[in-house]
């Protein structure tokens, strides 16, 4: 699960960083390496420490313990104004008393760059974010999306080694979000700058990122590509936090070749999952299956290798491209199932209170111990 192509050369190294506010550990022994040119997301619920970690990277907070290296240079003690890092704030923090052009030029002026070059670079940058016609406007004359572009241009014009983005899409409406998402990815691809994004929105993290770090209570829970984090969550927390999942608590009762048999009271019997590092017999585990990995049918499926359970349709919802079902098992447990509506049918395939069978392949189930 670790060691993949994107992080081949460590560019940002976060070494055992902790940040305490009094007794409270906002960030707790986090170690992480991020490769050059990655679009890396830190994902977690509010209060999980992701924003504190970002502010430590920007230099607004100094870590209580640990070190941070960027491109091999220790920047732990550097103040924010001397770091090769720039940030796009969640509030955008566009200076309200300066024009768009002045906002973008501000950082370059502080570097003492000659005026002619500032003008050229600001012009280029405004052109890239399509704000060239707005150069003389004040922020209050701009829309939210335009203000965000100013914030982005202002940070990028400094040609930072790393761009930090704090909840970049949170303040935008749904349509603009999707547009901006792809635009950010495009800009990142074009400039090759390393992006570190903090977000609470798992969908956003999945679409944007080359890799995701999931945080909870100040700790790093899992780091991996979106696919890894989704398909192979390493804990109940990650499985539950990202997407929807059905979790069956139980105990390990035995092994067949590479599969593990788990007794789940909820499911009314034994379930099977594949595992390369099976836990000992008798240990408590959780067997998790994503709704889209479950098949649903009116007749009992033949494949005996699959896990098969009987139930009735308690509730169903039609979402156009797919349908969601809530299936109640004989034990009373409700399982969520989603199915693609690939065929257009005049009559509904399933109705409320229909008796159905659900089934899944052993490889579709994930065994979680944490």
């Amino acid at each position, binding site marked *: 699960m670790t060691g993949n192509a994107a992080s081949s050369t460590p560019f940002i190294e976060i070494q055992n960083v902790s940040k305490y506010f009094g007794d409270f550990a906002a960030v707790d022994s986090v170690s992480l390496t991020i490769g050059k040119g990655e679009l890396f997301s830190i994902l977690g619920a509010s209060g999980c420490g992701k924003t504190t970690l970002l502010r430590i990277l920007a230099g607004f907070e100094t870590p209580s313990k640990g070190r941070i290296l960027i491109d091999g240079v220790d920047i732990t003690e550097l103040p924010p104004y001397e770091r090769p890092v720039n*940030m796009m704030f*969640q509030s955008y923090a566009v*200076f309200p008393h300066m024009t768009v052009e002045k906002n973008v030029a501000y*950082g370059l002026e502080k570097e003492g760059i000659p005026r002619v070059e500032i003008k050229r670079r600001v012009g280029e940058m405004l052109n890239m974010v399509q704000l060239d016609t707005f150069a003389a406007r004040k922020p209050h004359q701009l829309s939210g999306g335009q203000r965000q572009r100013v914030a982005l241009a202002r940070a990028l014009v400094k040609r930072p080694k790393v761009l930090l983005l704090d909840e970049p899409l949170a303040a935008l409406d749904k349509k603009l979000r999707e547009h901006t998402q792809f635009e950010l990815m495009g800009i990142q691809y074009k400039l090759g700058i390393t992006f570190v994004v903090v977000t609470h929105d798992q969908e956003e993290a999945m679409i944007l990122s080359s890799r995701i770090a999931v945080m909870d209570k100040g700790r790093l829970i899992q780091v991996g590509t979106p696919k890894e984090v989704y398909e192979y969550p390493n804990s109940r927390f990650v499985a539950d936090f990202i997407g929807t999942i059905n979790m069956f608590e139980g105990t390990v009762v035995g092994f067949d070749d590479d599969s593990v048999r788990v007794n789940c009271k909820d499911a009314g019997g034994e379930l099977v999952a594949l595992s390369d590092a099976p836990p000992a017999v008798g240990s408590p585990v959780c067997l998790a299956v994503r709704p889209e990995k479950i098949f649903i049918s009116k007749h009992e499926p033949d494949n005996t290798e699959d896990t098969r359970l009987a139930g009735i349709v308690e509730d169903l919802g039609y979402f156009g491209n797919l349908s969601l079902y809530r299936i109640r098992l004989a034990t009373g447990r409700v399982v969520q199932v989603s199915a693609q509506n690939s065929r257009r049918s005049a009559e509904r395939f399933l109705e409320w209170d229909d008796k159905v069978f659900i089934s899944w392949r052993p490889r579709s189930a994930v065994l979680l111990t944490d």
Partner: protein
Amino acid sequence: MIAVAGFRRDMLWQRFTIAIPYLWLLVFFLAPFAIILKISLADPIIAQPPFTPFFDGQGGVAATVDSYLFLLTDKLYAVTYLKSVFMAAVATLLCLALGFPMAYGIARADEGTRNLLLLLIVLPFWISFLLRVYAWMGLLNNHGVINNVLIWLQVIDKPIAFMYTDFAIYVGLVYSYLPFMVLPLYATLERMDLDLVDAAQDLGARPSQAFWDITWPLARPGVIAGCLLVFIPAMGEYVIPYLLGGPESLLIGRVLFDEFFVNRDWPLASAVAIVLLLLLVVPIVFLQRSQARDAEGHA
């Protein structure tokens, strides 16, 4: 039709609600200025009331600009006006120098402390102004607390004459008007988005540069309001120069008061008031503009 008439009748009380305070202000605020202007154009006489009538009784108008001419020709008045402007301006700057860091500190304190600190700024405002000035008399006296402490500490061996000096007036002005400076400054600083200062530092500004580039310009509405709220009343101050200042520290408020009560020259006092008002019209209009803008910004 009936419904409309009923609605009209319902709206009658609105007219009433406007009319009562409106009339009150017209009679007791606006009209007096017309009268001041009128009397400033009269001649002083020894009578009750001590000025010549505006209408001479034969249908003509008996106006004279003697009082204004006197103001212009007597150097005392020009000096007094200038000194009043100067002292009010210095007191305003002192208030700003002390008030800005205080307001900044209060705005950046955590919430519980912030409310207590604000309360402590407002509290003196509720305690008698006169008694607060009086308190300084006890401190600044030749035998007052400050001199006693300094002598006891052996910093000095003879008391320093603080009282009846311009220094004492400045102390009194700053002391009395400091809350008027701190409150509007606090209001703007507290509203300010702290991310802006972080952003400036992120873009390479040192803390001091970030202060002058971001915090200071954004605090400007508060600075303007605070300065005007101190400058305007300080210009016309009477009690502080009277109690703390020396006989030579004549401020215009005190001159007006004396001209009226001691010399009983009502036309001249009125002329002094009119000129003071003209001096203050610009800052007053400025203040009202900035407050109106502020009110709109809130809505």
